[in-house]
């Protein structure tokens, strides 16, 4: 048979597959993923939370460590602080200190107008007493009565919005929650990547080489498993001091154990697949086979596992922070915020609610995404 006839025979055998667009496995998985509403909702939610945490601070004028002594532990509200009622009280107090009386007080568009009266001529320096209060700024004498017994003062009212309320130190909870999000998400992602890197390499190597090497490597993993996690963390913190980077590494270094096991299990089954045998027959080295054949084919279960590692890591981080081994004030993570909120649950419920809501939403989103990915990457009906 000539080459030409072979080609025609093969063409006859060719199914009409060519009319369809060519798709890789990951593209097919993406199509399945997109049809999963819960997972897509999770993606959207997660994107919004990330935006909120990382872009939010740009639009917020309060820093996360800015203290407002006048507004300690105030409840969340949509109206500005302080409200006119309390302002009047503040002004009265200021007037009292200046030994004058407040005869009228009005607030309009962020400026206030106060008329004060005294029994003796008023010293213009009385404005200082007003400025000394947190709420007033740039107080100026607008006009002075001819007898100097009364005076009209104007100045800015420093009105602040605390949509999420403030904490016990008078810091804006909104800014704190954003910061907490940044740190929690960063820790979650970075530590998961650390565990991913170590776990995949370790597991694939152990599983692929097998035999005695596998035995030794996996026993080592089991030994690490049996060490109490906290003990390990305390030792590492004592040796290397506290820092966020260290938290990334510590958590990643603990989480990779499970990843290594999963990847090893995958590798053991992949190793028996014929394409690995074919690669061996082509003369690829062990390392080339691991890199080109084993690791790319473990990616499905690994991605799914990562989506469950991220929340786990975030929980671990909050646990460490709770023990005082993690993020230190004035920095905060959702974990520390929740711990703090839990202590003040009776006096200031919002300190618990806001960080918790964000944390829970993030965990839910990640879980939905993980579920969606699992269904997309490992469909039962193919």
């Amino acid at each position: 048979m000539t080459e030409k006839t072979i080609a025609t025979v093969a063409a006859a055998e060719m199914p009409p597959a060519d009319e369809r667009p060519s798709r890789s496995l990951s593209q097919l998985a993406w199509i399945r993923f997109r049809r999963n509403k819960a997972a897509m909702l999770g993606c959207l939610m997660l994107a919004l939370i990330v935006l909120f945490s990382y872009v939010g601070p740009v639009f917020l004028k309060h820093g996360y460590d800015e203290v407002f002594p006048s507004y300690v532990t105030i409840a969340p509200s949509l109206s500005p602080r302080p409200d006119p009622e309390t302002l009047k009280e503040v002004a009265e107090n200021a007037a009292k200190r200046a030994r004058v009386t407040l005869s009228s007080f009005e607030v309009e568009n962020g400026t206030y107008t106060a008329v004060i009266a005294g029994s003796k001529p008023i010293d213009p320096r009385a404005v200082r007493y007003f400025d000394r209060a947190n709420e007033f700024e740039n107080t100026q004498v607008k006009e002075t009565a001819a007898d100097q017994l009364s005076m009209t003062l104007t100045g800015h009212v420093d009105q602040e919005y605390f949509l999420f309320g403030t904490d016990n130190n008078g810091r804006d909870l909104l800014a704190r929650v954003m910061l907490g999000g940044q740190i929690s998400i960063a820790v979650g992602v970075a530590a998961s990547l650390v565990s991913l890197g170590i776990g995949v390499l370790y597991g694939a190597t152990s599983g692929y080489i097998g035999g005695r090497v596998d035995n030794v490597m996996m026993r080592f993993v089991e030994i690490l498993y049996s060490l109490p996690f906290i003990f390990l963390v305390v030792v590492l913190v004592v040796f290397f001091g506290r820092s966020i980077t260290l938290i990334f590494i510590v958590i990643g270094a603990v989480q990779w154990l499970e990843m290594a096991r999963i990847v090893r299990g995958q590798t053991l089954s992949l190793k028996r697949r014929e394409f690995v045998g074919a690669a061996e027959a082509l003369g690829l080295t062990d390392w080339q086979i691991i890199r080109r054949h084993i690791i790319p084919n473990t990616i499905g279960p690994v991605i799914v596992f990562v989506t469950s590692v991220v929340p786990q890591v975030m929980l671990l981080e909050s646990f460490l922070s709770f023990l005082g081994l993690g993020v230190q004030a004035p920095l905060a993570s959702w974990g520390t915020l929740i711990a703090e909120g839990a202590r003040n649950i009776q006096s200031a419920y919002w300190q618990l609610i806001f960080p918790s809501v964000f944390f829970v939403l993030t965990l839910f989103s990640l879980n939905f995404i993980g579920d969606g990915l699992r269904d997309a990457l490992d469909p039962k009906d193919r």
Partner: protein
Amino acid sequence: MTEKMETVLDVKDLKVEFDTPDGTVQAVKGVSFSVSRGETLAIVGESGSGKSQTMMGIMGLLAANGRVSGSARYAGEELVNAPLRVLNGVRGSKITMIFQEPMTSLDPLYRIGRQISEPLIHHKGMSKGDARARVLELLKLVGIPEPERRIDSYPHELSGGQRQRVMIAMALANDPDLLIADEPTTALDVTIQAQILRLLADLQKKFGMAIILITHDLGVVKHVADRVVVMRRGEIVEQGPRDDIFERPQADYTKMLLAAEPSGHKPPPPPGSPVILEGRNVTVDFAIGGGFLAGGTRTFRAVDDVSIRLEQGQTIGIVGESGSGKSTLGRALLKLLPSAGYVRFGQTEISKFDRAAMRPYRREMQLVFQDPYGSLSPRQTVGEIITEGLFVHEPQLSKAERDARAVAALKEVGLDPATRNRYPHEFSGGQRQRIAIARSMILKPKVVVLDEPTSALDRSVQRQVIELLRDLQEKHGLSYVFISHDLSVIRAISDHVIVMKDGKIVEQGDTEMIFDAPRADYTKTLIAAAFTH
């Protein structure tokens, strides 16, 4: 056939569709047939013809994205899209199924007695004691040796043929009116295959049920069917009594199927060709058991003192049933397994080489696998797959040069080079096997070990692949070691045949000699089982 010709299952205009991201795929496009009591109806077709999906659709066992329409009546009752209650009353009791892979159809965690008695207790409300007695009776009926002992075995303790017998016992437990057998013998060795088919025929004679046999194997059909339905691409091409189909086929497709048996012979290599690969006293031992608590290891001798001489341009066919050590021998010759004995390639002794020392020789000694689905990495494009060997053996090639080589290799195996950016899952089995062949051929090897390269393929595709292999051999002066359990394939491609059993060579000789005048009893049994039906 029996005197009462009542219809058991009547299928009219049955359609099965699947929703995929690319729109609806019609797997079955309106088929009609019926089967009567005591009759065996064979549904024949190649993979993708919709023959299995037809039955799955009737039984309500389609995948989640499948839809079925039309009509299938069992004893006047409509089964298509029937409520689950109705289906469950019929499935497993009046209509039962046996599947291709008996290992995966049996739950590995239950003793077989329990698996068989479950439908009895469930459908018939038998007591446990009665059910056990009935199970024993069934196991005897399907010819399981020592049923009293086997009833408490787990599936892994049985051989493939015995597992299929257990499946049949399970299917018979409730005296079905219709037995649907979906490729019941495809996973079995030829000798076992013949036994199972005989068992089915005997049981049918005894109980008078109808059998629908779904298969791609015309040899099986010819042996057992009363009537034949030929399917292609979801449509019925032709149906009629067996003899009409085999002797007076009307449709071209049926004629093509009937003629698809691999044919032709390979011209022998010129006498005095140099020996390119030689193995002397090759022995392979596997350690089994030897876990932490299992005590000492035992060794299992997979290949026992086998010698083989492959000349340039020659094809040696190695035949044997599963477990005969034929694949192990092939791998041992390529030094992919640790083995004892002497192996030389050309003038070089390679039996003492380690992996690194073997590497330069790898490109000259290639291996092609059986399973075209498993042997291609699903995450690489076809282009990446076939050029992989070049990375190792010709790392100096530029990307463009590699691509050019890939195009040439794909053309050589009869595939469109434009498909090299596609992924393996988009190709049919035959095309995948061509890709696997291209992956080996791109390295211009001297020796290729082909491990059941055609066993997973349809007959018509098989024939094309064999022709392709023969052409490539002629063109490049290749030497093949061709491993197969399929005697007709071996006959069409080999110069020299080695028959193996339990790791030993039973008989060897020139192809014609082995097939025309076998000496060993085992060879005679094999040939009888393969060609009589």
